[in-house]
């Protein structure tokens, strides 16, 4: 067997659907029917999961640390809001794609700023872009509604068939389908040669360049893709809540997003989705204990995660499932173990 075909069979084996993955999506679908009274919070989780998936693409696969990912979320949210408000594109699905494309264009333009420089410069530039957009949205209040946000958005039925209802049922299934479609796309992308080259870049940019990977253009491409995803998440936010306000750009949103992804683990796509579920549950829990000061507990969770070590926590969490799988299947653990450190 030649080296090349060996690599490709290896990659193909990695891309196969595992039982645990199928089980995950069946579980998600089951939740949709089991908790009909919780559509609003579940929509929230789906949206957050999609947003975290977008950050995972650049953080987990390309190793770009971003403190301003809310910029694309916000642009998507406002684009969808403006499109619906002024009746430019009435059909939600087309508006969704359009909003994602707007965010992708912004991502493409800013990616040139981001690929320059080291971690610290990237942090500053991404943070700066998000703050800049927030300031712009506040400044052009005649377009964005300023601190009041966009008001009076009315959503047309999806595909002209399914109207948004007040219980959020349509919104939830709409979000879930969007998430699943985009997840399939992301899964295809990260298992493609393109995705493999991103991992090479993350592990060692210099070496990746030496074996002929065009580092900069790959980073630009994935950054644009991630911006598209974040824009879609933002547009979903606007479409399902009929609301877009300045806080879509806020630093807290970017920071929470990192927490979501860190809880779930980076670099295996499900991290963002699992993290979103855990994060929302934690948030609900803390808000029910101390309504006003839940931020403290979120901060504590962050500190503890870092101090104990992300890899170690994930090992602990996966210990029991792995044990069960080993017992019953009699083979190596099938639960995906998140990749260790992002440097």
């Amino acid at each position, binding site marked *: 067997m030649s080296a090349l075909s060996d690599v490709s069979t290896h990659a193909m084996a990695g891309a196969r659907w595992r039982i645990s993955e199928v089980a995950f999506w069946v579980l998600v679908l089951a939740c949709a029917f089991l908790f009909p009274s919780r559509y609003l919070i579940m929509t929230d989780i789906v949206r957050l999961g999609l947003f975290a998936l977008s950050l995972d693409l650049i953080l987990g696969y390309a190793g770009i640390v971003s403190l301003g990912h809310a910029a694309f979320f916000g642009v998507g949210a406002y684009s969808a809001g403006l499109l619906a408000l002024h009746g430019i594109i009435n059909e939600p699905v087309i508006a969704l794609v359009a909003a994602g494309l707007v965010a992708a264009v912004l991502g493409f333009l800013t990616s040139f700023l981001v690929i320059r420089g080291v971690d*610290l*410069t990237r942090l500053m530039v991404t943070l700066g872009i998000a703050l800049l957009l927030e300031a712009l949205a506040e400044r052009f209040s005649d377009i964005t509604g300023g601190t009041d946000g966009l008001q009076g958005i009315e959503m047309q039925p999806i595909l002209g068939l399914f109207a948004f209802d007040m219980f959020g049922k349509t919104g939830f299934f709409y979000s879930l389908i969007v998430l699943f479609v985009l997840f399939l796309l992301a899964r295809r992308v990260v298992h493609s040669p393109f995705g493999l080259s991103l991992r090479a870049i993350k592990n060692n940019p210099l070496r990746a360049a030496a074996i002929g990977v065009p580092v900069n253009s790959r980073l630009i491409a994935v950054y644009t893709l991630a911006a598209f995803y974040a824009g879609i998440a933002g547009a979903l936010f606007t479409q399902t809540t009929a609301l877009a306000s300045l806080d879509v750009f806020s*630093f807290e949103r970017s920071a929470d997003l*990192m927490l979501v992804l860190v809880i779930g683990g980076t670099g295996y796509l499900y991290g963002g989705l699992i993290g979103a579920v855990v994060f929302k549950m934690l948030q609900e829990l803390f808000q029910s204990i101390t309504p006003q000061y839940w931020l403290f507990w*979120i*901060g504590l969770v962050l*500190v503890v995660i*870092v101090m104990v070590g992300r890899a170690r926590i994930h090992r602990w969490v996966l210990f029991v499932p792995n044990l069960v799988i080993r017992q019953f299947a009699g083979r190596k653990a099938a639960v995906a173990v998140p990749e260790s450190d992002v440097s």
Partner: protein
Amino acid sequence: MASILTNLFDGVAYGMLLFVLACGLAVTLGLMNFVNLAHGAFAMAGGYICAVLVNQSGWPFFAALPLAFLGSAAIGIALERTLYRHLYSRSHLDQVLFSIGLVFMSVAAVDYIMGSSRVFIKLPAALEGQIDLFGVGIGRYRLMIVVICGLLTLALQLILAKTRFGSRLRAAVDDPRAAIGLGINVPQVFAFTFAFGCGLAGLGGALSAEILGLDPYFPLKFMIYFLIVVTVGGSSSITGPFLASLLLGIADVAGKYYVPKVGPFVIYTVMIVILLCRPNGLFGRTAAR
């Protein structure tokens, strides 16, 4: 003309304040390469210590300032010894997450203890009002800030350049391994520097309560300013951050006064452009390690 000079002076005072607030960060972020987004939390701690002492215990303002310094430095060294020092060798992502966590905790804790409204520190009568200098109106409080911060800057420069501790710190930063080999206790030097930087931030926080406003969201609101000072100023010397903070202070005050509508994004745009042209800062030395 006079109003231009007054604004310029306000800008200088603001810039010097930013420098005192951020110069501790210049050491941790610029020299030790630790991304510490929680620096503003130490400044806030100093501000609240001063506010409690002056408003509730009736201390004179000038006696409370040194205590703001000491209090923040004590918190700083406690955290450095227990938490921060484990993270020096970790990835930037871990450092960012950890310090964001600290910021969130400090915001909520201060909100819980002190309430969420803005806190004012009672100033002595001697610091209120303006004095007229060659026809230019100058706020007494701002004049005091310029004097205090100017003296501090000089002292810092002298400590770094002339004292034994300064040369140890420079050695530890230039090449920690060689410094350890020469018998310099590098962790101790870093811990002390970290605490000193936190103390300065605390002092700056106490001084800035009047100008920037002190509320539980202080660390989040001014985080970007501190980061701008350090990244734009570079970290090769104390002069870089100093000039950067003066520039930022003057630009911010002038921006808010003359073009109030586009104020904030001028600063962010300038920052992004500078970082693109010179990723190591305006006065940077070599590539970051």
